């Protein structure tokens, strides 16, 4: 049975010439799991918001949306609020109240349900999502992943038939993203909830998808079963796909696309020879002069608290890209903050270019030496337009292709564009050492690619870069050396490929796919080149 029918939907933002959504029609069957793809600015978010009457942006909307045979325009407010659940990417801001139980009750309070019913449904939902022992906690004390799970639970409490998810995991670390994806999958499988989801990283959800949709410049160009769609898809869809699909596609194979590591591994190991086990790579040599030297640094936030950084010893050489991996709460952000002088170490010494931090007097540290790109880049934006934002830093030539947005408000940019604008701002002081805190968070495939190229150019120009990230695939592409932060210490650094190929969790899908068959193949490109060199195995 069709649960959602969209008929020739168009949407135009005020003051825009082009329609953001142009004549989109599709039908979803009950219980389908649909992934909506498309690069930044293709209208994914707008389309998803148009499906939910309460969050339609300001602008001209044409077309019909029919849920369970009823036009949404004719629905009562309470029914319309309940039938479609909407979760956006901002895990912090979509939580409204201060206590977990109140957040769960919020939706039902709003539609005037009686108290007994609220109690029952909150109890049920809390048990299903694992919040039973956290009901009286402050929402502020939850981790990012838990917040997003709470946002999902707070929507599920209203018993929606359709879940509309707008990049729900883009702010989360990989483990939280995975557990969120599993939960959505569980709701889809056990409860028959129809899911339509847009996401940057498809690794976790592609295996669950029944159908793929691709938006391009506001038009729906692909809307087909997953395997069929992948078979005839072109680069615009495939560039967003995870490593298994990309490897299979690049090698020009026919048949069912592998969507997870396991099937991709069987494909690579089964079909390709491994006479050449390793690519000849340029040995990661580094200069001998030290850009950053930290020795036995310790730090804690409160006098009686535990040391969050406990004996951090780390050397980064000039001209290299160094990546620091680590779990949530392992102190990665704190480490960057210490290096950039944002907070002062309790003990130990930090030298930047051979000079102790405290010898950089009067902000001279931030004038041509060190720059930090924070995790939340909105903390850098002060003005109303991109141009003002940059001219404040004495940048007249707008870099990174941002010139077409020069009159836009920084908050109206996509995640990727914001990141580039912030990067342009912190680069304005011409630092010799650039620190990046989770630079790929909330970036889509295209923006990641762009950032990657920028970092490579900066490195070529002699800049030293330290990246703190969960994104192992990104680090695999650009970092020379890597270390894992654990118990407040940095484990001995290794060349990136070696470290990733040796790890089971801080590693890349490509490494897992090719492990044992090939050595040190940590990016899709590595695996593809090795497969090509070796050729197909005889059957």
């Amino acid at each position, binding site marked *: 049975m069709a649960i959602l029918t969209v008929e020739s939907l168009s949407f135009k933002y005020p003051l825009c010439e082009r329609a953001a959504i142009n004549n989109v029609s599709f039908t979803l069957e009950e219980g389908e799991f649909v992934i909506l793809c498309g690069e930044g600015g293709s209208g994914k978010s707008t389309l998803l918001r148009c499906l939910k009457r309460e969050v339609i942006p300001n602008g001209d909307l044409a077309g019909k949306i029919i849920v369970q045979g009823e036009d949404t325009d004719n629905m009562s407010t309470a029914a319309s609020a309940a039938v479609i659940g909407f979760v956006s990417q901002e895990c912090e801001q979509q939580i409204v109240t201060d206590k977990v139980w109140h957040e769960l*009750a919020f939706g*039902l309070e709003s539609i005037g349900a009686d108290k007994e019913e609220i109690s029952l449904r909150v109890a049920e939902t809390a048990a299903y999502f694992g919040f039973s022992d956290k009901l009286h906690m402050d929402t502020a004390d939850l981790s990012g992943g838990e917040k997003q799970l709470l946002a999902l639970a707070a929507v599920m409490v209203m018993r929606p038939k359709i879940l509309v998810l707008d990049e729900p995991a883009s702010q989360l670390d990989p483990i939280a993203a995975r557990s969120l994806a599993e939960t959505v999958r569980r709701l889809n499988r056990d409860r028959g909830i129809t899911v339509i989801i847009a996401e940057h990283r498809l690794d976790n959800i592609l295996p669950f998808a029944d159908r793929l949709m691709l938006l391009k410049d506001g038009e729906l160009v692909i809307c087909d079963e997953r395997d069929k769609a992948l078979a005839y898809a072109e680069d615009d869809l495939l560039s967003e796909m995870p490593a298994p699909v990309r490897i299979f596609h690049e090698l020009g194979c026919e048949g069912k696309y592998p969507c997870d590591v396991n099937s991709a591994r069987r494909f690579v190991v089964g079909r390709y020879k491994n006479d050449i086990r390793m690519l000849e790579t340029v040995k990661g040599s580094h200069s001998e002069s030290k850009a950053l030297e930290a020795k036995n640094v310790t730090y804690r936030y409160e006098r009686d608290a535990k040391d969050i950084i406990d004996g951090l010893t780390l050397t980064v050489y000039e001209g290299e890209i160094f990546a620091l991996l680590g779990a949530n709460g392992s102190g990665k952000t704190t480490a960057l903050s210490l290096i950039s002088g944002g907070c002062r170490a309790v003990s130990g010494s930090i030298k930047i270019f051979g000079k102790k931090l405290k010898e950089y007097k009067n902000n001279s540290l931030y004038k041509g030496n060190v720059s930090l790109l*924070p995790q939340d880049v909105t903390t*850098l934006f*002060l003005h109303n337009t991109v141009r003002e934002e940059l001219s404040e830093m004495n940048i007249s030539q707008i870099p990174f292709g941002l010139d077409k947005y020069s009159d836009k408000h920084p908050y109206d940019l996509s995640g990727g564009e914001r990141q580039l604008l912030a990067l342009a701002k912190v680069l304005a002081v011409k630092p010799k050492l650039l620190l990046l805190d989770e630079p790929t968070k909330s970036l889509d495939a295209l923006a990641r690619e762009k950032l990657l190229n920028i970092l490579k150019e900066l490195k070529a120009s002699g800049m030293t870069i330290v990246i703190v990230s969960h994104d192992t695939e990104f680090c695999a592409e650009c970092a020379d050396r890597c270390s894992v932060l654990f118990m407040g210490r940095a484990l001995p650094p290794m060349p990136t490929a070696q470290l990733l190929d040796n790890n089971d969790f801080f590693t890349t899908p490509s490494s897992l796919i090719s492990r044992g068959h090939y050595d040190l193949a940590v990016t899709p490109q590595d695996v593809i080149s090795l497969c090509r060199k070796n050729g197909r195995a005889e059957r």
Partner: protein
Amino acid sequence: MKKLDDMHPLSVTLFFLCVTLIPMFIPYPVITAVSFIGAAVYVTAQEGRASVKTHLWVGLLFLILTLVNPLVSHKGTTILFMINDSPVTLEAFLYGLNSAAGLSSVVYWFAAFARIMDSEKLLCVFSVISARAALVMSCALRYIPLIRAQYIKTRTAQRSLGLYSDGNIVDKIRGDMRVFSVVITWALENGIVTADSMAARGCGSTKRTAFTTQRAAEFDIAAAVCAAALTGICAAASLCDRLDISFYPNIVMSHSSALGDIALAAYFIMAAAPTILSLGVDIRWRYLRSRA
């Protein structure tokens, strides 16, 4: 039997309103004294050693209030001694002592009230006024710490841009202004996300239900009725002029009467109730444990 801590927040609020309003409106020395002692004993029993700090503060307040009145007011007929040709009178001193006991006892009661009422209980009280008021309070409790955290993050980020400096006071003020402005923009922009999230869950569609985690048991209702009744007796006695006192020029108290004595007993019960309930619950708990 229940401690005040475990009672329904509305009963608790009503009780504290009554127990503080009576000494405020009926400044009869017996009442202020009972209020002061009752409150001090309760705070000590509840907080144990941590109450020392409260006692020191209240003691200081008590001392100041007692001493200031005779220095400022020179009414009264019994002169104790002279300071700078101004008389210090016994009546003014006793008046100061009485009002100090009254006011200090209010501070004690408030300290006890604040300890009992956490944000969930306050929310419950608000939700009786209106479901919207409760929502506004809950949002405020969520957003004030969030904005504070964003302020700290922003300050660090802006500092590393090299535009914010601690060098001199003008630069520092300018830097703080920048941070403030960034945080305001952030709060407004993110308010839109929150508003969407609220609208998506049907906020504003119909009359809100005010859901709370609190439960009213028969004991809570009975306690509230008792508190109201005892307050009624005190009010009646006061209205019939049985609990009057005037300090100037001479101290004149109303004569002992049946109604007045009953009212004093009523207030004594109220002021002692929190401690008695708390003790009673503890004894009963031990008894139950010993039988298990």
